[in-house]
């Protein structure tokens, strides 16, 4: 029988969900324009989407490899150079597709949760 530990969003299914959509969350964050690594990590962290912040960097590398984002290092006045990420056309398209799928998926789950709760 499945053991579901439900506390602080640590349910196994939730952490799996998180991992699955994390890449798209990154793409979503870039909709407003280029952002640098640390900034992206911080936003994700504040949204409660990461447990290990360092793993975002391999994720960013994967998104780069897949052509969803492009990056460039820029000098920063206040410290070390920053790596800025921006969405590519492919990334925009990918995000749009995901947004549609997510909308219908979450609607479906919500509906089922509601129905299940009814007496």
């Amino acid at each position, binding site marked *: 029988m*499945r*053991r579901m*530990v439900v506390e602080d969003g*640590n349910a*196994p*299914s939730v*952490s*799996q969900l998180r*991992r699955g959509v994390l890449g798209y969350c990154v793409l979503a964050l870039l909709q407003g324009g280029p952002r640098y*690594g*640390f900034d992206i*990590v911080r936003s994700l*962290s504040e949204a409660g989407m990461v*447990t*290990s*912040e*360092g*793993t975002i*960097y*391999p*994720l960013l*590398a*994967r998104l780069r490899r897949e052509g969803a984002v492009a990056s460039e290092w820029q000098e920063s006045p*206040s*410290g*070390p*150079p*920053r*790596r800025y990420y921006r969405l590519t056309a492919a990334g925009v398209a990918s995000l749009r597709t995901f947004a549609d799928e997510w909308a219908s998926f979450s609607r479906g789950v919500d509906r089922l949760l509601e129905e299940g709760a009814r007496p």
Partner: protein
Amino acid sequence: MTDVADRIVRTYLRDIERATRDLPRSRRRELLAEMEAHIAEARAELPTGSEAEIRTMLERLGDPREIAAAERGRRDPDADRAVLEGMALALLLVGGVVVPVLGWLVGVVLLWISSRWTVGDKLLGTLVLPGGLLPLVALGVLAVNVSQPAGLLIVSVLAAAPIASVTYLGVRLRRARERHADLRADVGIA
């Protein structure tokens, strides 16, 4: 910025270096640069830069080995295994035809080293039929007369048995993978 804090950060970065030793050099350098930049930015924002704050920050950054594993894409370690398992099935069926006997033998080896099938499954896969579709093809090559009922029966068996056995192994494989995935989900992995 105290010496202790610097030392802790240096140790952490060294751990990252060590954990990523097997990665391509360019990617490794890149990742280290990103980690260093992140730590520098995070430190600049710390209220006091105390040892406790540094440690907390590094904890949030995560275990170097976990980060290295994410880089390796090892969140799906089953991907490589899946390739071998697929190859096992293919070779069991037609390997013996493509590279007579040897191709099938390689399939048998791959079958037995996999942990996805039970010993019973493996025995079945090996004994039904030895050579996979090779005996059928060999029969064709040797132009054995198959017009009599007995001949037709033999041909049918030589064709159906390997296909059925490989199909059965495929079904067992999929169930095993699903069970495995469920297990990992229960424990919160993947």
